[in-house]
């Protein structure tokens, strides 16, 4: 089971309820084909860096999909024919997340090994920065 991030841009003159309808349609379609949408993030209306189909702004939406590749292929096909969607991008993230988890584990084991002097203070001090420092890149 792979994890993908699908980000797509919807035309800015879409109303909220149309947007909700679109999202729920896509969610149910992914659900019926056997995947799950772990997360839906509406990143709001943003100015585009270049004109896309004569639009200068767009509403950004991010899906985190958990499933097989075929599910994403079907989802992309739907996005391509849906008229309000003007651009989409799919990125596979499960390998990257595995690598990040490994790096974090190695780093934490280093910290624990080194923390013989004032071990409690060290653990407390490094828990705060790592929680702040390492989750921010992912959440941004």
């Amino acid at each position, binding site marked *: 089971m792979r994890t993908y991030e699908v*980000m797509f*841009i919807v035309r800015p003159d879409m109303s909220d309820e149309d947007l909700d309808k679109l999202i729920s349609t896509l969610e149910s379609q992914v659900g019926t084909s056997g995947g799950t949408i772990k997360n839906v993030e509406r990143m709001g209306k*943003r100015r*585009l*860096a*270049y004109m*896309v189909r004569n639009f200068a702004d*767009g509403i950004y939406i*991010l899906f985190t999909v958990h499933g097989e590749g075929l599910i994403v292929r079907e989802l992309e096909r739907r996005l391509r024919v849906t008229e309000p969607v003007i*651009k*989409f*991008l799919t*990125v596979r993230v499960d390998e*990257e997340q595995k690598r*990040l988890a490994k*790096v*974090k584990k190695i*780093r934490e084991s280093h910290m624990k090994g080194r923390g013989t002097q004032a071990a409690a203070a060290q653990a407390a001090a490094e828990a705060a920065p790592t929680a702040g*420092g*390492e989750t921010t*890149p*992912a959440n*941004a």
Partner: protein
Amino acid sequence: MADEVRTSAGPSGEQSSGSGGDRPSGDRGPRPGGPRGPRGSGGPREGGRKYFRRKKVCKFCVEKIDSIDYKDFRLLGQFVAESGKIVPRRLTGVCTPHQRRLSTAIKQARNIALLPFAGRM
């Protein structure tokens, strides 16, 4: 010239001009096989730069930023020129693996209109 013995990647064997200074990979000086574009190690011929440019460090290695995300366009925008081009790593000091990931992330961000392909020139 005797200097040519050192350079292995020179396209033409004989150089009638004395200064082989514009050789991109030529290490004429006593510096033994440093990185190709001498980074931080000066030398009188370096594309016009004088001795010992301040040693630039990789921002990602220092701050221990693990994941370079295409969504993080503010971070990516620091490595993009005014014209929208990706800045080469000899100017920013980024290390090679991070530069590769950064480059992929910038290209992904460009595709999803978070960064321009070509900005104002």
